[in-house]
């Protein structure tokens, strides 16, 4: 099996696995207009960031980092930027233009704060961008151009036994090819942090892994919650997971076996190739946006009992091994391997099959989540607004 896929090589040299017209609204004020424009431009992807005014400090930095990352994700062939004021929108226009992405910005300031005018101008500008990027073609590229985000949601013990170790084999393969792979959900390192720390590339990385877990554990204790019933949540418990330790030990199997190069923050792009950890929340919508905001073009997402959510920016390949779920969710799981769970198929063989699916999706085959329009973006808040 070749270590190549067919992608869109961007002016920056980065490679997209999709060629989206991204309609990016950088303030909640223009969210409805952005959605209206997108409805008139079939195939466009809309991201309507719901905040802006009053964001502070670390929170402001995190949101701007995520917006910059989503707009410069190579899956975006062109960006239609929608916002309220020219100064704020101009910063993003400059950023995306420097990367060579075709970008058109329109603000409410320039439309006399008339949303109807903004809608009309947006549709015309978006249509033109769409025409331009429709002329781009895929070409063969190496796997080293891939940044992979690895997620699990509504897990059960089949995730830890089969699906997550399967993703671990894929992560190792991408890393060995010179690409990037990462997991987040740092609360689900708790109880397994010693195994991650043992793989840290430097003592500083090991210390950051421990600090990330201590931070999440401290939040749980300070919040007065019992993790049992929260994480693992009700569906995890019904599926057979009993404690956070058990869930974590299954979760980290997604990380494979290669050295851990760094611990990044939510929506922060890793600085180099290899395997990385993202210290971010475990709620899937926010976690996936953390990955696509950090530059991941492709996501792999395991589920035990079923989870339909996918990311809007990055195709999300759903993987399962629970025999009941595999039989039931035909239009959700892009790859199911109940035969590994039952002991009738080797994990390594499943990894070969899943790798074929990954190359196919990276080269243009649509995931169930894309076909059904299950994608969204969700922004982690780090603090209060003024």
């Amino acid at each position, binding site marked *: 099996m070749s270590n190549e896929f067919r992608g869109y090589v961007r002016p920056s040299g980065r490679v997209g696995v999709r060629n989206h017209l991204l309609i990016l609204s950088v303030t909640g004020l223009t969210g409805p207009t952005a959605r209206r424009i997108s409805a008139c431009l079939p195939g466009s992807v809309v991201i309507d960031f719901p905040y802006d005014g009053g964001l502070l400090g670390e929170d402001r930095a995190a949101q701007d980092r995520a917006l910059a990352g989503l707009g410069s994700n190579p899956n975006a062939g062109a960006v239609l930027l929608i916002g309220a004021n020219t100064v704020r929108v101009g910063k993003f226009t400059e950023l995306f233009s420097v990367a060579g992405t075709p970008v058109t910005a329109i603000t409410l300031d320039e439309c006399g704060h008339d949303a109807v005018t903004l809608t009309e101008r947006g549709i015309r500008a978006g249509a033109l961008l769409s025409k331009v990027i429709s002329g781009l073609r895929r070409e063969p590229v190496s796997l080293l151009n891939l940044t992979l985000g690895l997620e699990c949601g509504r897990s*059960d*013990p*089949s995730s*830890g*036994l089969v699906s997550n170790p399967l993703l671990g084999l894929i992560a190792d393969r991408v890393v060995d090819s010179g690409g990037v792979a990462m997991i987040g959900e740092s609360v689900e390192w*708790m*109880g*397994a942090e010693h*195994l991650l720390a043992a793989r840290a590339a430097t003592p500083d990385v090991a210390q950051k892994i421990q600090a990330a877990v201590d931070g999440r*554990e401290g939040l*749980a*204790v300070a919040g*007065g919650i*019992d*993790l*049992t019933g929260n994480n693992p949540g009700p569906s995890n*418990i019904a*599926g*057979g997971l*009993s*404690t*956070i*330790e*058990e869930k974590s*030990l*299954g979760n980290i199997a997604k990380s494979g076996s290669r050295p851990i190069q760094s611990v990044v923050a939510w929506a922060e792009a890793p600085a180099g190739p290899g395997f990385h950890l993202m210290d971010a929340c475990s709620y899937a919508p926010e976690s996936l946006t953390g990955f696509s905001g950090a530059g991941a073009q492709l996501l792999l997402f395991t589920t*035990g009992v079923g989870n339909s959510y996918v990311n809007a920016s990055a195709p999300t390949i759903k993987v399962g091994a*629970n*025999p*009941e779920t595999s039989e039931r969710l035909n239009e959700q799981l892009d790859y199911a391997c109940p035969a590994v*769970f*039952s*002991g009738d198929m080797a994990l390594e063989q499943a990894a070969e099959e899943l790798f074929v699916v990954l190359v196919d999706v990276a080269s243009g085959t649509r995931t169930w989540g894309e076909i059904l329009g299950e994608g969204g973006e969700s922004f982690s808040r780090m603090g209060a607004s003024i």
Partner: protein
Amino acid sequence: MSTRDNRKWDAVVLNPLDQVATALGNLSAGQSVRVRSGEVVEVIVLAEDIPLCHKFAVRVVAQGGVIHKYGEAIGEASIDIAIGCHVHVHNLKSLRAQRN
């Protein structure tokens, strides 16, 4: 009733240190189930129904004893647990994020 009557085993122990096995099908109280641990398959009589993917004890665990899966600690027994019993949130307690 086992959904895996034609299989060679009904449950797996993932690591020799583990006191629990994971059910590979919906298993019933009173059933003699085949439990694989590495290359060895032993028979255990279930004391309770064990749903697909849930855990049961393959060794006696005394109250306060640390329970292992994947060869790692996943919590401690909150009561004495006998062989063949369901091991879950009613008798297995996390050791993490506890208020002291």
